[in-house]
């Protein structure tokens, strides 16, 4: 947590200590001055730190130890047979900016991570096409590529906050099945064009080469307009956990649609009605009917600092910061409340908003030991406003909420401890 040393002057813009963006600019000047006066630097002459003498470690072949031992994903088991069918979540509370390091991108596998030989792996396009075609990895590497910074969110992200009691967990443990990366690959329509899509085709059934053979039906419009075969993530060839040698990527849609270890694409005039789009990833409503193919992830945000299980230190000005994203387009604005939603102030969007891209928002907040409930609310370019938890769950059968995007509430207690609450 980043604590700003300087105290701003002037009126608050919303209740319970939220400060305006004008203050933000003033604080920017104050921060630089404060940094020079940190007490740690004053001790320098007394004890010399051991790392300031003697050579350090040599360069490494790949990677390095994380700078903090706590920089780890949290593993979530979702299958009684073991962890192969499970998930691990990005530690949102330990990261800043918008890009997720590849080693911390969330994972969700249905039967473990396969060891695929890229030389023998094939991708086959068939069904309602003029000429069924097979491509190998080397062939795909020769196609024109595009790079796009995109968020990817699991349909079941934030599920734990749909449960009856609020769990005392971190932001990552509650909401970490969202990550962002720069994905590079071949636009899917290049391959579909080459095979010659029949006029009657409406859906593309994507299948993975993992033990689960994960398969999903993707609307042809999405496949032609926006989807890509991703080959690189943040500059390096895909990791095995992210679909090496190739994965589908359908921007803005539930992560399950972006089939990893992609091995076939079958064009049909209707969805295949696979297990993952019927038995799973459908939203059962109170009337017993279930919404199917709710593909686009909706406007959502979460404050990552201060957040669950953190503890505020000295009183003064803190920066409230978090992530916002929407599968309907880009983020238009994010509002923050420090009084449980009674009053709101607009946060600064620090990174440039873009389609299907997560943005980082920030706003200064003065904490003087008062209890507070911190919330954030995203508004996307289509005008969708992130709903309250109660509103998001109003028509959902208990325990069956995929696509949950209700507002997160963090309670700050007088002793500085921060806890997940339902407010």
């Amino acid at each position, binding site marked *: 947590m980043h604590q700003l040393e300087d105290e701003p002057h002037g009126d608050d813009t919303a209740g319970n200590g939220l400060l305006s963006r004008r203050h933000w600019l003033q604080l920017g000047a104050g921060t630089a001055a404060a940094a020079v006066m940190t007490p740690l630097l004053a001790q320098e002459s007394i004890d010399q730190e051991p790392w300031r003498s003697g050579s350090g470690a040599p360069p490494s072949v790949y990677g390095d130890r994380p700078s903090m031992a706590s920089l780890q994903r949290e593993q979530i088991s979702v*299958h*009684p*047979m073991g962890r192969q069918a499970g998930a691990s979540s990005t530690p949102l509370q330990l990261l800043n900016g918008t890009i997720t390091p590849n080693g911390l991108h969330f994972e969700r596998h*249905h*039967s473990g991570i396969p060891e695929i030989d890229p030389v023998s792996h094939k991708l*086959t*396009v*068939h069904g309602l096409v003029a*000429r*069924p*075609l*097979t491509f190998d990895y080397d*062939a795909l590497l*020769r*196609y*024109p*590529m*595009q790079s796009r910074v995109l968020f990817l969110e699991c349909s079941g992200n934030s599920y734990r906050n749909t449960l009856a009691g609020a769990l005392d967990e971190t932001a990552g443990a509650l909401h970490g099945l969202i990550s962002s990366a720069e994905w590079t690959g071949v*636009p899917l*329509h*290049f*391959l579909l064009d*080459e*095979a010659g899509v029949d006029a009657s085709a409406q859906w593309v*059934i994507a*299948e993975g080469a993992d*033990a*689960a*053979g*994960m*398969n999903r039906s993707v*609307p042809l419009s*999405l496949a*032609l*307009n926006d989807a890509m075969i991703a080959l690189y993530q943040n500059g390096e060839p895909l990791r095995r956990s992210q679909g090496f040698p190739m994965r589908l990527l359908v921007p803005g849609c539930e992560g399950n649609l972006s089939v990893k270890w992609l091995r*076939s694409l*079958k064009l*049909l005039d*209707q*969805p*295949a*009605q*696979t*297990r993952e789009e*019927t*038995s799973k990833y459908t939203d*059962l409503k*109170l*009337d*017993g*009917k*279930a*919404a*199917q*193919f709710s*593909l*686009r992830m909706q406007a959502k945000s979460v404050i990552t600092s201060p957040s669950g299980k953190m503890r505020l230190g000295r009183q003064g000005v803190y920066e409230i910061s978090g992530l916002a994203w929407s599968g309907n387009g880009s983020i238009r604005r994010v509002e923050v409340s420090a009084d449980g939603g009674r009053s709101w102030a607009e946060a600064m969007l620090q990174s440039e908003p873009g389609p299907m891209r997560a943005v980082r928002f920030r706003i200064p907040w003065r904490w003087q030991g008062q209890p507070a409930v911190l919330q954030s609310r995203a508004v996307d370019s289509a005008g969708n406003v992130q709903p309250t938890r109660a509103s998001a769950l109003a028509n959902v*059968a208990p*325990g*069956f909420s995929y696509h949950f995007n209700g507002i997160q509430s963090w309670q700050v207690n007088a002793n500085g401890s921060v806890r997940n609450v339902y407010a």
Partner: protein
Amino acid sequence: MRSLVLCLLSLASLAEAQMGHDLRPALGIDAPEGYESVAASDGSGLPPGTGTAETGRMIYLTQCAACHGADGKLRGNALVGGAGTLTTSSALKTVGSYWPYATTLFDYVKRAMPYGNEKTLSDPDVYAVTAYVLHLNGLLALDAELSAQTLVEVEMPNRDGFVQSPLR
């Protein structure tokens, strides 16, 4: 329809403009004859072969029952039961209570089961196990023969339980 196609074309060319060029090497080779990847709800992609619940019973008890229970009702992995619960506060989603298509059961067992030993059942065995799970749900007689033709005719109780969200 024509305007939709034009709209799609313009979007595609917009994406290519961002890419800089559109010089595609056309490296696809002919797919293997008869290549198949999915058994869909219209029956397309279902392989030849037949199986009865009677023959599926033994396969089920040796390969499936450990995780799903001999009666298919093992908590957490239930395949059977839950009828009438979808409107209650403790809905139980099973093949019988929730799944809208019987073809889905075949497709899923063929690709993803038995868990940890996937794709080891023959097509007739998959028909047989599918038949037995449907039988446990009271949807198929023990001696009924399941095939590509008869599988699509199985009437699932929750067939009309789904509302397709608008695609945007």
